[in-house]
């Protein structure tokens, strides 16, 4: 970025004032001195630039003339090489373009590479305050500035806080000697868990005691339970025996009752239940037999009373034919009259048709109808006749047209001239036309003329050297690079010479100053030593006189002598001091002389080297001076380029001409091969015309021949079509005649043309319908008459069979009578058959009941035999006795089982034995004695269970070993956390350490280049009083030290104020160079920071500014006129701007 113009439109004491720094000039340092006396507004302008870049500050002190609302600073800034008008106001969107449109601040942030106001002030916008404060910051290598100078230039400046954050995160877990860390906390948790564990251990003995108690109670419970069980068993036994005694008594009673029934036989058990049913069955069946016999007798009597009409009955199924014929006769009588009318109508229609066909006398009209196939064939033949005739006519006409066209084509071919064969003419013609030799030749010719002119001019420009281009090529000249190097060295040596001369001047000025300071001598040594001795002896003599006399005159005399001696001694001491000072000055002069001698030697060496280089340069080419050599070499290169271009153009011309000749020759050869004489065509254009005409003629001839061949083909096709049409017509005629011959139409002879036959066919189709209707009706009438006759015959036949022949009656009446008689005979026959059926049913019923009676009677007989009785009543009694005996047996078995169950024995005999002579009374007594005992045991057991519950509650309250396991788990969890976080901690610490080391190494790399630059600037500014700058390790890193020329090192704090300021300036200069190298340059602005510099150092500082101004813009504001003069002398090309005091 660069400031081209600063407009102080309304700011501080300025109104519409403008500082125009102008564009940057090539080869000139971009150094601007702004001169203005006090109160002219230098500091205001200095602040205005800052406010332009960063916005006007809230509490700006520059609102004394123009209020905040109206303050306005403008500028023309060069951003990335492009000038841009910008305006800064106080309110709203404060940055605007020249038209007042808001502009984002970012463009300035980018141009300043993101430096904020504070950073820019400390680095590159310097007044006395920021020079010192920023410089100290840099020296301390801490704070933003230190990092900026060493780190910003590459953007790593803000890593340190992030690293610090990570480090603090790691420290959050562990920090040597730290309190409240995560590790401490976890260890505390661990300790707490351990204490808890120990507390639980103290409870262990109590726990054991409780466990013992519980064990005791459990033992007691077991003992009491066993005792109670014994008691319970005995009680149970007693209860069983008491129950068994009645059961035994019941058993014995039943055995006694069984004895009288021992002789009874056995009977099936079902008998008892079946007996009543059996009695009932026998009774009921006997009654049914009597009823069936009575019904049979009744039915037999009715059957015998019945008589039948047998002849009529035989005809029952023989009347079907008669009835059928009767029905037909009835229909025929109704239909016949209408059928006969229909027949007459059909015959009338037929006659009409025959009339139209001119065949009225035709015996058999059916003969006239053609069959379907013949009719279709005839119709098709009639239709195709018309198509064939049209076809034939068209073919004949087309044939005639084709013949005519062909004759015309043949005529055209015969009339045309014979043509040439084009052969190879066409490819040769295309090659000639497509070739670009013509344009190429023209272009090459133009370039050739142009290059020749330019070459002549270029050779002329090489004066005073003269000669041809080839001589120029052969001339030996040095390389441009070496010439540049020589010139640079020459410049360098000139600079060195100027520096040496300036140093010599300064040293001489110093020596002169020293000489002037030397005091004059005023005392001569040798004479005065004797006078001093005389004065001393006079004083001694006076003193001796005073002691001897002790009076006033001798005292006065001594006083005078003593004063004279004192004066002489004082003068002597002063002289000795002057002499010492004189020697010192002499020595300084000698040192200065030595330094001057060094500088002079350096001057001589530089001037020798410069002369040498100049000789080499001037000797390179005759007549060309050192400074002109480089441009002359450039001109030479240009001339040589032109020479090469000219040669290339000439080669191109020749190539184009060769190509053209070759192509023309090829076309000529092709034309002569085709029999065309091309000798007359001299130019390429004439050749092209000739060849084109030949090709066009050949094409026309070929087209004519093609057309003739085409018309011949068409003619042949047409003739063939005509033949086909003729053939088709002939074939149709033969087929037509054959078809006619197969029908009566041949009788028509020559009348049978397709047209007539077509009309006849339509008429014949109309005849078909009356003919069909006539035949149909005739057939039906005959059939009806036959039906009536058959009916009459049938009735007569049947009447004869029944003996009812009566001629007076009509056939239908007779038939009615026969039907009635037959129906009556059928009714009588049906009644008789029903009676027969009834008799048969009655017989069957009788035999069924007789069979049903047989089975119960057999069963009763079986019972009688088995039980030895003879009535069903006796059977009932016997069966009752047997049932009672069986019941007793079952009861005895049941009682035996009960007894066995009660006493726990397998058999009744064993049970009875086990019971023995048990006495119910004794057992009762024992039971009464045992019951209270069992209850007491129960109570005891309940108490013991309660005790056990209490003991277990106590154990649970103490806490079992599961608490220990839980604590152990927690402890392991905490340990795992410690391990994880410890590893994380180490990982972060290792990473931070690595990053810090890398950052240090990186800074070291970048610092060393900066340090070199700062060191050189400091050496120059201090006029060589210091060799430069160095670093010394310190506990917080490295510190910067100054290295005096006399040896040793000085910390920055030990330097004088002026020297320290110079160090700070040197650091900024180095920073400016570094910034410009890595980024884009930014303007460097300083406000009278050289107040403490002496003139020599100020001058050298201006030289340093000039160096900075070669890479970026430098603006220096001052109120010292002599600085302006010094700058004009020291830095050629410096621009000085006058700041006039505000009105």
């Amino acid at each position, binding site marked *: 970025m660069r400031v081209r113009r600063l407009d102080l439109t309304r700011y501080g004491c300025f109104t519409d004032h403008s500082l125009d720094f102008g564009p940057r000039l090539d080869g000139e340092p971009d150094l601007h001195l702004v001169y203005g006396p006090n109160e002219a507004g230098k500091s205001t302008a200095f602040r205005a630039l800052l406010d332009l870049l960063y916005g006007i500050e809230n509490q700006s002190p520059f609102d004394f003339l123009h209020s905040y609302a109206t303050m306005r600073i403008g500028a023309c800034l060069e951003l990335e090489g492009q000038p841009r008008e910008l305006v800064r106001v106080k309110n709203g969107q404060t940055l605007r373009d020249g038209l007042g449109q808001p502009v984002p601040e970012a463009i300035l942030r980018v141009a300043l590479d993101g430096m904020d106001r504070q950073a820019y002030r400390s680095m590159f916008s310097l007044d006395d305050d920021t020079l010192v404060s920023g410089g100290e910051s840099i020296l301390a290598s801490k704070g933003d500035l230190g990092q900026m100078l060493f780190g910003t230039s*590459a*953007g*790593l400046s803000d*890593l340190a806080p*992030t*690293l610090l954050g*990570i480090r603090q995160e790691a420290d959050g877990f*562990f920090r*040597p000697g730290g309190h409240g860390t995560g*590790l401490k906390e976890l*260890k505390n948790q*661990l300790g707490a868990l351990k204490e808890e564990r120990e507390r639980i251990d103290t409870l262990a003995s109590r726990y054991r005691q409780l466990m013992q108690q519980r064990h005791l109670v459990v033992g007691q419970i077991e003992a009491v339970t066993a005792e109670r069980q014994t008691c319970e068993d005995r009680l149970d036994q007693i209860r069983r025996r008491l129950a068994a005694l009645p059961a035994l008594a019941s058993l014995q009673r039943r055995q006694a009752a069984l004895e009288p029934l021992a002789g009874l036989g056995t009977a099936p058990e079902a008998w008892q239940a079946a007996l009543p049913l059996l009695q009932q069955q026998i009774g009921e069946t006997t009654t049914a037999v009597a009823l069936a016999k009575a019904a049979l007798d009744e039915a037999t009597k009715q059957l015998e009373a019945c008589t039948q009409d047998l002849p009529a009955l035989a005809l029952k199924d023989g009347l079907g034919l008669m009835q059928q014929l009767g029905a037909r006769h009835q229909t025929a009588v109704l239909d016949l009259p209408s059928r006969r009318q229909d027949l007459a109508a059909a015959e009338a229609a037929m006659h009409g048709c025959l009339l139209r066909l001119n065949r009225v006398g035709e015996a058999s009209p059916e003969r006239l109808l053609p069959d379907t196939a013949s009719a279709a064939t005839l119709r098709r033949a009639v239709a195709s006749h018309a198509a064939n005739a049209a076809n034939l006519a068209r073919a004949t006409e087309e044939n005639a047209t084709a013949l005519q066209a062909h004759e015309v084509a043949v005529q055209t071919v015969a009339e045309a001239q014979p043509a040439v064969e084009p052969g190879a003419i066409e490819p040769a013609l295309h090659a000639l036309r497509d070739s670009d030799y013509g344009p190429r030749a023209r272009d090459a010719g133009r370039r050739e003329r142009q290059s020749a002119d330019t070459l002549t001019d270029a050779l002329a420009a090489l004066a005073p050297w003269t000669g041809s281009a080839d001589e120029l090529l052969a001339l030996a000249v040095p390389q441009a690079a070496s010439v540049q190097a020589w010139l640079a060295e020459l410049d360098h040596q000139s600079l060195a010479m100027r520096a040496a001369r300036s140093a010599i001047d300064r040293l001489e000025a110093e020596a002169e100053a020293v000489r002037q300071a030397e005091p004059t001598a005023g005392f001569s040594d040798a004479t005065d030593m004797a006078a001093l001795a005389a004065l001393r002896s006079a004083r001694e003599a006076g003193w001796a006189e005073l002691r001897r006399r002790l009076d006033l005159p001798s005292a006065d005399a001594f006083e005078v002598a003593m004063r004279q001696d004192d004066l002489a001694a004082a003068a002597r001491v002063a002289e000795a001091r002057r002499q010492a000072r004189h020697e010192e000055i002499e020595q300084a002069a000698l040192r200065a002389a030595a330094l001057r001698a060094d500088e002079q030697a350096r001057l001589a060496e530089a001037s020798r080297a410069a002369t040498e280089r100049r000789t080499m340069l001037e000797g390179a080419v005759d007549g060309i001076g050192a400074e002109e050599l480089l441009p002359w070499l450039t001109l030479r290169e240009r001339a040589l380029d032109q020479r090469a271009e000219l040669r290339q153009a000439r080669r191109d011309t020749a190539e184009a001409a060769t190509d053209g000749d070759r192509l023309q020759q090829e076309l000529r050869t092709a034309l002569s091969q085709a029999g065309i004489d091309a000798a007359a065509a001299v130019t390429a254009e004439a050749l092209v015309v000739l060849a084109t005409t030949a090709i066009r003629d050949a094409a026309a001839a070929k087209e004519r021949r093609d057309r003739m061949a085409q018309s011949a083909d068409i003619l042949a096709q047409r003739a063939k079509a005509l033949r086909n049409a003729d053939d088709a017509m002939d074939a149709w005629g033969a087929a037509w005649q054959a078809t006619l011959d197969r029908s009566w139409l041949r009788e028509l002879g020559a009348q049978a043309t397709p047209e007539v036959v077509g009309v006849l066919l339509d008429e014949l189709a109309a005849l078909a319908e009356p003919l069909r209707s006539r035949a149909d009706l005739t057939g039906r009438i005959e059939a009806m008459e036959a039906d009536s006759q058959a009916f009459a015959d049938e009735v007569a036949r049947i009447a004869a069979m029944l003996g009812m022949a009566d001629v007076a009656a009509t056939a239908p009446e007779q038939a009615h009578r026969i039907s009635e008689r037959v129906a009556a005979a059928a009714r009588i026959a049906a009644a008789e058959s029903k009676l027969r059926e009834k008799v048969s049913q009655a017989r069957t019923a009788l035999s069924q009941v007789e069979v049903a009676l047989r089975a119960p009677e057999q069963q009763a007989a079986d019972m009688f035999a088995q039980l030895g009785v003879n009535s069903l009543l006796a059977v009932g009694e016997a069966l009752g006795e047997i049932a009672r005996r069986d019941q007793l047996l079952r009861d005895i078995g049941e009682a035996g089982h009960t007894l066995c169950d009660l006493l726990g024995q397998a058999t009744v005999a064993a049970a009875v034995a086990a019971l023995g002579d048990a006495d119910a009374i004794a057992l009762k007594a024992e039971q009464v004695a045992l019951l209270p005992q069992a209850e007491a045991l129960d109570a005891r057991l309940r108490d013991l269970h309660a005790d056990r519950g209490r003991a277990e509650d106590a154990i649970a309250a103490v806490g079992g070993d599961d608490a220990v396991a839980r604590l*152990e*788990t*927690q402890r*392991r*969890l905490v*340990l*795992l956390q*410690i*391990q994880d976080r*410890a*590893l994380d*901690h*180490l*990982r*972060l*610490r*290792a*990473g*931070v*350490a*690595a*990053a810090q*080391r*890398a*950052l240090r*190494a*990186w800074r070291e790399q970048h610092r060393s280049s900066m340090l070199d630059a700062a060191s050189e600037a400091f050496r120059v500014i201090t006029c060589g009083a210091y060799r430069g700058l160095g670093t010394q390790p310190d506990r917080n890193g490295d510190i910067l030290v100054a290295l005096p020329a006399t040896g040793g090192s000085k910390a920055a704090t030990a330097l004088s104020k002026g020297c320290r300021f110079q160090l700070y300036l040197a650091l900024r200069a180095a920073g400016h160079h570094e910034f410009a190298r890595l980024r884009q340059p930014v303007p460097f602005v300083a406000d009278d920071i050289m107040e403490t510099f002496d003139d020599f150092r100020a001058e050298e500082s201006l030289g340093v500014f000039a160096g900075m101004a070669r890479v970026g813009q430098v603006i220096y504001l001052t109120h010292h006129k002599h600085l302006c003069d010094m700058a004009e002398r020291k830095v050629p090309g410096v621009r000085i701007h006058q700041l006039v005091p505000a009105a």
Partner: protein
Amino acid sequence: VARNPTESQTAEITQLFSGRALTSVAQFERIAVDLTGIENWPAMVGAVEAALHTARSAASSPQLVARLALTGASALDWRLRRDPDLLLAEAQARAAATGGCWIDRVQVATVPLASTPDTADPLDDLRQLMSGDALRDEGYRAELADMAAELQRALPPECRNLLGQSPAELATLMDRLADDGAATVLARLRRMPEPR
């Protein structure tokens, strides 16, 4: 096993390991996920989910406790190291969605893509200075050893073996921690939200 992966779950796992018998209630697996060629966060999450699915299908126990190890060369390297909490949360969410699956922890063992050195980014200079031999420098190792010794003294006696049983083990561990730590710190120093 608890419903969510909180401390109680960790306690359960601890019991499983400290207890003599590894029951079949849960099973512990290391699952490696290769992120080579994966360039963005959602794709990485997808790969993790796929790996969890595969491991879940192969596991026979009703509960699977997974320790994920992310490997391979990926542009996501620095981001995985910068946002470990986010990564763990994503993995746990995927595990919960898979069902019967828990995340013990996620280890990031990826390496950055072999990027063309970007001269405009000074962090690349720093990366160069923080890699390879710089991490094996004797002075640096001594610094790390001091750190380790300091921490060792402060650790409770039960953890004294954490940093290895022998000097050789300690050195190996510290080298690994140095590599990991350098990558982690570099990732956190980077300010840009996305690489490209």
